[in-house]
């Protein structure tokens, strides 16, 4: 496993990151603007989430595969990256 481990990419859960692309889990998350960001798992169904965005770092992770974050996609929210929602099954949303 150490081959896959990088300081920059393929980061494990808990490792410091600057961009979600660095994380194996695909989510680089921090609690507040001042705190350091770390790789954490993506959000599961019914958990808080923020929609997938171009930003590298999230306050709330985007959802796992097959789920969608039903946040209000307000312009202000997407800029300040604080438009949170709940992960829902895409197929439930479609019905």
């Amino acid at each position, binding site marked *: *496993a*150490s081959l896959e*481990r990088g*300081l920059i990419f393929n*980061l*494990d*859960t*808990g*490792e*410091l990151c600057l961009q979600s692309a660095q994380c194996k889990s695909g989510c680089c998350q921090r609690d507040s603007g001042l705190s*350091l960001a*770390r790789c954490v*798992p*993506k959000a*599961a*169904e*019914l958990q808080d989430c923020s929609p997938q965005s171009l930003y590298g770092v999230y306050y709330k992770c985007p959802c*796992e*595969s*097959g*789920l969608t974050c039903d946040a209000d996609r307000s312009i202000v929210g997407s800029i300040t990256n604080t438009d949170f929602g709940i992960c829902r*099954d*895409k*197929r439930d949303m479609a019905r």
Partner: protein
Amino acid sequence: AEVCYERLGCFTDDVPWSGTVERPIRKLPWDPNKIDTQFLLYTRENTNNYQVISAVDSTTIGHSNFNTNRMTRFIVHGFIDNGEEAWLSDMCKRLLTVEDVNCICVDWSKGSKCQYTQASNNIRVVGAEIAYFVNVLMDQYGYSPAQVHIIGHSLGAHVAGEAGKRRSGIGRITGLDPAQPYFQDTPIEVRLDKTDADFVDVIHTDSAPTIPYLGFGIGPAIGHIDFYPNGGEEMPGCGKNALSQIVDLDGIWEGTRDFVACNHLRSYKYYSDSIIYPDGFLGYSCTSYDAFQTENCFPCPAGGCPNMGHYADKFKDRYKDSSFVKLYLNTAEAKDFALWRYKVTATLSGSKKVTGYANIALYGNDGNTRQHQIIKGTLKPDNTYTAFIDTEVNIRTVTKVKFLWNNNVINPTFPKIGASAITVQSGETGEEFHFCGSETVREEVLQTLTAC
């Protein structure tokens, strides 16, 4: 040579204490006044600041919140550590949220911040001090040693062993990764062993050989029941790169401790979490960690699996005989560390074989889990796959599951794969839940299977 101290008796450096392969360097324990062992009492009446109590001046016990009709738990730190380190008082605080006990942090930092070979002999005086303390409780307060539980980390575990050897009848000793150097392969009078208390449970989290793998914790099973979380050698979350390890959520100091001995410190972090997860940390009896990964150590026996940590004494009568019991389990990478184990058997359906991976998420009235990978490689319809998952939520009754596959390769034919039947078996109860599905789905689409 020999040295004698009033109150605590004499200490020699003859064999087996020194002059053996395991303990080559001769050292005699320091004077008790130099080690200056402190007993810091926390109770529900004083959860935030300790009261200093002493057996030498035993009136301090009478004047403190120490109460004779409740259990007493001693917590003993290890090498280079100290009694006022956060983890000891945090553990007391957590204990007091679930039970009404006398919680005493034993601070022997003056005897632990020195050469390891000296500290590993100083523990004999500290053990004698605890035995003396319990004797005073018995003589002056009619307190029964069966009410005493000593929790020791690293060298602290052998302190507990020494106390138990000197004062028979101690109710329980918990060894949190007992120290390996100078103790592994030594006679039972030197180290912690199952004769030191009515019930001895041990958690091994750093048991790789000291040379060359720098394992600090003892390897072999030494108690009535021995837990080897994650196999007992490499703990998840301890493989982080140095920077991420040192800059820790709980601050640089906590991070530096983890950087130096992450595996070794996990033992008390698991114990601390076990206090607030009475249904977590189930240990599966197995011959090895490899065997644990297969099916023949699953599920728990009819009588149930013991819980690693605080509630390990739930089945203490079952493990009284002389044999050793090794128990295995997996934990999470960061707190909260508790996980619950399930066996998942899935039969696939679909038009053609694809390569990729498949995940499953469990749903029930206790909530739902994240997606856990059950297959990696070829996904072949009509094939049945079996895998174990350790989930972060305890789903007691699984009401439905969601299946998803993905193969990261853009394939223009848009294949469809589904799960026709999935069986989930709970490790704790052995109960099986059967789910059926008739549809097939494209990749990254959740297929819901309901009870059939």
